[in-house]
């Protein structure tokens, strides 16, 4: 399940609850598109409850990163689980998608 929470400060939090695979990737993309469309400059993806991410889910996160950057903002991932961290390591994306310890930390990062 994908939840979008927009903040008046210009930030948005997209929370992934469960799995982010081919099944939920379209909903994730829609949520990020909506956040960027509402002028969110910082999109934080809360992965603390994401039990599993596959390459389709990862592709959707990369698409979100590009959309946020094109709008002059940024996308940050927060609190990834062991499975998600493993996928980031295996795909060499830890630097492009540098994980923050928590949503609050990602929001604070400026």
């Amino acid at each position, binding site marked *: 399940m994908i939840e979008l929470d927009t903040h008046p400060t210009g930030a948005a939090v997209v929370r992934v609850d469960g799995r982010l695979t081919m099944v939920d990737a379209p909903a994730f993309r829609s949520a990020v598109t909506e956040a960027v469309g509402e002028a969110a400059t910082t999109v934080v993806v809360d992965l603390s409850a994401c039990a599993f991410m596959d390459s389709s889910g990862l*592709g959707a996160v990369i698409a979100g990163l590009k959309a946020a950057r094109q709008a002059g903002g940024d996308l940050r991932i927060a609190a990834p689980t062991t499975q998600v961290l493993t996928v980031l390591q*295996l795909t060499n994306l830890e630097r492009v998608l540098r994980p923050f310890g928590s949503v609050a930390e990602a929001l604070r990062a400026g």
Partner: protein
Amino acid sequence: MPAELSLRAPGVPASLDDVHVLLTRAWDQHPDVGDDDRLRFEIAVVEIAGNVVEHAGDPDPVDFDLAVRVEDDRLEARFQDPGRRVDVDFGTADMPDALAETGRGVALALATADELTYRRIGAVNHWLVLRRRRS
């Protein structure tokens, strides 16, 4: 205790959830399988399931079969589907550029499985995902 768990599902994205459920049943029956083996095997199996759903189900979804075996020394998943032939070159299945949105599936499966094979036998696609147990 059954030696093999299997399912038949339509070649649509929602069937990935059935694959996860099947693997959860396998782990419930075999609590001795280590966390890292589960995690990496599940990555490989779901990537191939995604490949089956994405490619072999085009243009019309076809049912696929999945059988999972947990042995003392290895984990095996065998997929079969009567969809179109898959054009895959394991030798060139490298990770794409960092900002690519697609193209990581087979590379991820290769990184987490010890053996990954694809065969076209008659009009049926056969995938084998094998991981040797470390723990």
